[in-house]
């Protein structure tokens, strides 16, 4: 059996960048930043959705409930309808809009619909895969996410 030291040494020799390779986009291109945020927002949204399925079940009395229950719903409302709960909702609205809009860009890109055809390249090489309309779509996703944050903030805190 390998001990921890040997495993660490093996990992160092294998030299894989690991999960930081997913999460750290410093020094890299805009699309890499979009990838990081798509992945992170996806996980955040999934966790929120699971929590949301849990909290909405209190409308019918929670895990042991049998039908719509005003008492149970009032109890859950007292937990989620506050500043922290509303901040979470604003955050979720923001990341949902980013994830969705960036997702549209990814779907269009992965169907090859928004790229120029490959052609003869000249130095200095400017990759067509990194120009094209898809770059504008990343900025659009960011701007729309900010708009969503402001809008939901005004609804929940206005």
């Amino acid at each position, binding site marked *: 059996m390998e001990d921890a*030291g040997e495993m*660490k*040494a093996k990992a*160092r*020799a*294998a*030299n*894989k*960048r*690991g*999960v*930081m*390779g*997913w999460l750290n986009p*410093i*020094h*890299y*291109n*805009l*699309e*890499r930043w*979009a*990838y990081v945020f*798509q*992945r992170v927002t996806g996980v955040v949204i999934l966790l929120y959705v699971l929590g949301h399925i849990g909290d909405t079940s209190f409308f019918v009395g929670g895990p042991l409930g049998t039908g719509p229950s005003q008492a149970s719903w009032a109890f859950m409302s007292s937990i989620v309808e506050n500043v922290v709960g509303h901040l979470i909702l604003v955050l979720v609205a923001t990341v949902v809009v980013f994830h969705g809009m960036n997702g549209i860009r*990814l779907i269009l*890109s*992965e*169907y*090859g619909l928004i*790229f120029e*055809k*490959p*052609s*003869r*390249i000249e*130095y200095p*090489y400017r*990759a*067509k*895969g*990194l120009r094209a309309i898809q770059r504008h779509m990343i900025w659009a996703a960011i701007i729309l996410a900010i708009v969503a944050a402001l809008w939901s903030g005004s609804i929940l805190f206005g």
Partner: protein
Amino acid sequence: MAELRLRIQRFNPTTDSKPRFEEFTVQQKEGMTVLDAILQARDYVDHSIGVRFSCRMASCGSCGMKINGHPKLACYTQIRELGTDTVTVQPMDNFPIIRDLATDLAGFFEKHREVIPHIVRSDEQEMDNPAREFVMSPEELESILQFTYCIKCGLCTSSCPTSATDSLYLGPQALAQAYRYTMDVRDEGGQERMKILDEAHGVFNCHYAGTCSAVCPKGVDPALGIQLLKRHVMSAKPPRRKGEGAKLWVGEKK
């Protein structure tokens, strides 16, 4: 010119438990590249520095490494363009380290071989007794030309986030070459390649981070090739194109 402070990551997996940095002072010269600096340190100060290089002109793909955190070819990066007197060099990520700056590309080449990186023809007779050339129009060549420039330096794979954790992932280099051969009008191996690309750890584990294209020194733009390839994989058949398969000699009827 100012002296250069060159920090080289030293690591010998057979004897060291962890990497360390060693500093060398290098006399800068006009037009000096990072590779020149490393070789000056190796030739005059410490002969044991492990570095791989060959052509010194961005043609062989041997000297890929991380230079101040960016994946680049050492022979193709001038000290002056870095804008600093401190240069840190480390081996490329995601490849096993042999020693210091030299990494093991055997697995990388293996993945390249997996995508059948050559023209496949179905008619063996034709291969044994070729009667004429394949005619490829300039437009047909241009549709794959940039992808043929790959020098297999590995910089794309070293910067790919999926390759950072997924040791079975084909990688941007292999996937771009799969596109290059599938789109080549002379090739008839598209169906075979689709099967390989459609597996787990195949083309759909690319999530279009695009760093491969950002770091490629030859303008191959693997990210573009891979996104275009996904469409063909999803349509479950090789792309239709003018002049299916090899064209006969111009003017001759089939």
